[in-house]
């Protein structure tokens, strides 16, 4: 595969050419396949984007110049698709009220609210429904009364009784003089047209269709574009649109069932900063988050380094066996391991309490839970540190250590003054990336404690990280508030970006010192 590719890039071999043709043909056919639904839906801007992407791909690979472009285009396209677009959409969402109760647009909200006003007239007839047209091409409902079997045609003028009709075994009309009767498929297809058809049966009642049946009913709700309000004639309620908050409200402030999506400006961010409870919670989570990430790095590094130094001692026996055992926690899927740890910390039947004769409520006390999170994460993370430390130790220049020994440096001093600084030169970037990883270590917390412990009324748990907190805001308690969650994630993004920037700057300085 690889050499075919490099051949194609360099010289035109037959295999390379064929590969190129095949792949571009696949791109073209995928593009055509994707374009059809776009055209049908009239999504012209999306079609334009698709055409542009395909054009760029073809241009890039069908010419011999601009070789760097050939490498950059796919990465750039992927970056735009999976990184930049989501970020832009998150920013967009953070300025909206998108979430439960505000998912659809205004028209759809009006539609559902009005549909919820349909009432069946008490003790009225119900009908089996067939759909059709008069010879003049007007829509008609062809109805069979389920009570007495009489047949009716319903048009805009109202109901008229039918004489001779043909029916199927259930009694549904299949043919009638002066009407073309649709089959079920056509009825299903043209349901929307029939549902629009108003067949009056009284002052404010009409035939309503539902499935393959129909009944007499009233619709009590009406939308008036002039006042931008919905009136319920049965209860006298008037809901007026509140376009700023995306909902219909009565004068008393009662909301209609369905709201819609609107932009709310900086409201979500304002909520982050003005809500006192939220602010203190945020600070608490932030401090613990830093401590968790720093502690994880520190402990895993200390443990990993210690193990590596022990195994690196000359004359140490059975290193291979030890090494295999050490790597085990790293080799097993952390998802499963975290769940096992969670069971081991169970207060009543957990291994930890039973072995140590403790009665600690690991999930119920903040500091116990934090200790548990750190212990678990250290166990999960130290093999990685062990591996890189072992590698770095073996690569240390032997002459520096020897020189130190000749100068009379004892074990600790040699470690502190020579080994550790030399190690840190090569390992600091890895420690920083480990810090960044643990700062957002969603799995370790979500699967182990789920943010617990929570006191009644707490929004934030004792072991919550910013990322688990944001996740719960968006998806957690089954009421979704995507707008606010997006604002939280933008905030987290800023925090992580700042910390990373500072740390990378420090690393660079440190490298200069050691180099």
């Amino acid at each position: 595969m690889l050499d075919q590719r490099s051949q194609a890039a360099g010289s035109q071999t037959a295999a390379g050419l064929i590969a190129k043709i095949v792949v571009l043909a696949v791109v073209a056919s995928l593009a055509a396949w994707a374009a059809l639904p776009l055209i049908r839906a009239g999504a012209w801007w999306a079609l334009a984007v698709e055409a542009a992407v395909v054009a760029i791909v073809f241009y890039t690979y069908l010419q011999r110049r601009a070789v760097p472009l050939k490498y950059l285009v796919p990465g750039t396209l992927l970056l735009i698709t999976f990184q930049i677009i989501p970020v832009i959409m998150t920013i967009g969402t953070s300025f909206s009220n998108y979430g439960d109760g505000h998912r659809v647009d205004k028209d759809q909200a009006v539609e559902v609210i009005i549909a919820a006003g349909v009432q069946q007239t008490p003790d009225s007839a119900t009908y089996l429904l067939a759909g059709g047209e008069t010879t003049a091409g007007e829509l008609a409902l062809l109805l069979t009364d389920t009570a007495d079997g009489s047949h009716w045609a319903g048009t805009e003028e109202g109901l008229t009784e039918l004489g001779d009709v043909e029916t199927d075994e259930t009694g549904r009309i299949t043919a009638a003089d002066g009407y073309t009767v649709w089959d079920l498929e056509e009825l299903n297809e043209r349901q929307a047209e029939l549902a629009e058809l108003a067949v009056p049966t009284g002052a404010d009642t009409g035939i309503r269709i539902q499935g393959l049946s129909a009944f007499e009913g009233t619709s009590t709700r009406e939308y008036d574009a002039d006042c931008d309000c919905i009136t319920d004639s049965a209860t006298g309620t008037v809901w007026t649109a509140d376009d700023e908050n995306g909902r219909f409200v009565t004068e008393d402030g009662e909301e209609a069932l369905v709201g819609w999506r609107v932009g709310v400006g900086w409201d979500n961010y304002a909520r982050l900063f003005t809500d006192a409870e939220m602010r203190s919670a945020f600070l608490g989570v932030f401090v613990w988050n830093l401590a968790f990430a720093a502690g994880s790095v520190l402990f895993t590094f200390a443990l990993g380094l210690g193990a590596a130094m022990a195994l690196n001692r000359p004359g140490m026996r059975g290193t291979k066996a030890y090494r295999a055992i050490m790597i085990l926690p790293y080799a097993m899927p952390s998802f499963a391991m975290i769940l096992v740890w969670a069971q081991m910390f169970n207060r009543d039947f957990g291994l930890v309490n039973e072995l140590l004769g403790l009665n600690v409520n690991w999930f119920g006390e903040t500091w116990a839970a934090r200790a548990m999170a750190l212990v678990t994460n250290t166990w999960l993370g130290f093999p990685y540190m062990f591996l890189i430390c072992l590698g770095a130790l073996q690569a240390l220049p032997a002459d520096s250590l020897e020189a130190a020994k000749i100068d009379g440096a004892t074990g600790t001093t040699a470690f502190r003054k020579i080994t550790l600084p030399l190690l840190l030169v090569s390992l600091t970037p890895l420690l920083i990336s480990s810090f960044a990883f643990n700062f957002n270590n969603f799995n370790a917390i979500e699967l182990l404690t789920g943010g617990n412990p929570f006191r009644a009324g707490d929004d934030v748990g004792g072991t919550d990280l910013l990322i688990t907190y944001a996740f719960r805001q968006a998806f957690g308690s089954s009421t979704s508030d995507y707008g606010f969650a997006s604002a939280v994630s933008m905030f987290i993004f800023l925090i992580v970006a700042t910390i990373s920037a500072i740390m990378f700057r420090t690393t660079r300085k440190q490298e200069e010192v050691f180099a």
Partner: protein
Amino acid sequence: MRRRTIGTAAVSAAALGAAAACGSGDDDSDSGEESGPDFSGELVIWADETRTPILKEYVKDFESQFGVKVTVEEHVETLREDFLTATEQGQGPDIMVGPHDWTGQLAGDGVISPITLGADVQSALNEASVRAVTVDGQIWGAPYSIENIGLFRNTDLAPEAPATFEELVQAGTDAGTENALLIPVGVDGDPYHGYPIFSSMGGYLFGSDGEGSLDPNDLGVDSEGGVAGFEKFRELGEDGVLSTSINGDNTVSFFTEGRAPFLISGPWSIADVQTAGMNYEVGAIPGFEGRDPAAPFLGVQAFFLSSKADNVTFAQELITNFVLREDDQLKLAELGDRVPALTAAAETYLEGNADAAGFAAAGENAVPMPNIPAMNAVWEPFGRAEADCVDGASTGADAAATAAQTIRDAIAES
């Protein structure tokens, strides 16, 4: 390098196309291309992993009667999220089968359409099941089965069915097993399984608004009965009857291992208990002496019509007519081991089915799990308050007050 890069470009172009297809609002791209009108001839139902196999079997009748292909798609664990996301974009199925307590949220999000059930149909159904799918005075789904938790009793360890909760605890203690009773609590609390205790002490969640719907402004968590309920959680926690280390993952296995004579759980545990080959009986959860009966939550499974359904006629026909027939309810009940919502079908089903009859007895006082969106604000705070009380970390009054405050804030905010 090159071929791979072209490949990824192709994939991303395909992804773009797929994303665009998502936005196009019709899901007939596989079949409808050559014909003019876009009738797909396929009714799509989404359901969870428990219901999907049942429905696949069930829809065959509908298919043969109307000549419509019905596809049942399984959505493991994320049915509600999937349905919300797909439908708000104009995609998704024609019908979704789910529990009734989603009704308020789905209706409020504008993703389901109301249905009309005639008075005769309504009266033929279990009265509570109709209330369960009613929001804002309107019916939003067709109920087909009901379920509630009950009391499993290991008849070898506890031969007599207890008449009061005190007797239950006594019998459990006398049995000399490690636990007297197994109720899932867990570190987050479990309001669903804890509600019978709470309600027996006089607690309730939401009062009625007088029009058949629940009133989110009338919260009963910190009412007098509510406080008594949380006090009871604390008391039972102190006595070791309730424990936060007992949770949904271990209750059933502990019960089948004989670690306690009593288990509070639902019909979904029958299979495990039967497999264990033990002697057991299912019955009502007793209330506390001189208090209200212990009311479990009633869960209703219902068919909901998507507001973006492509095949409205067939979907409505299935929901408002087909599944409400006696034979169909019975068939669904037998396939799914749940009591039908239709009273006539339920009577037939319960005859000679001891477990189902036991659960039905336990469900006599059941109240529908609140279906208003405000209920989403209740679970977490209520559960944490319960767990705090069981752990002895909080008094009943404090826990009730804090939980109620959090819930009220959350309701006011949304």
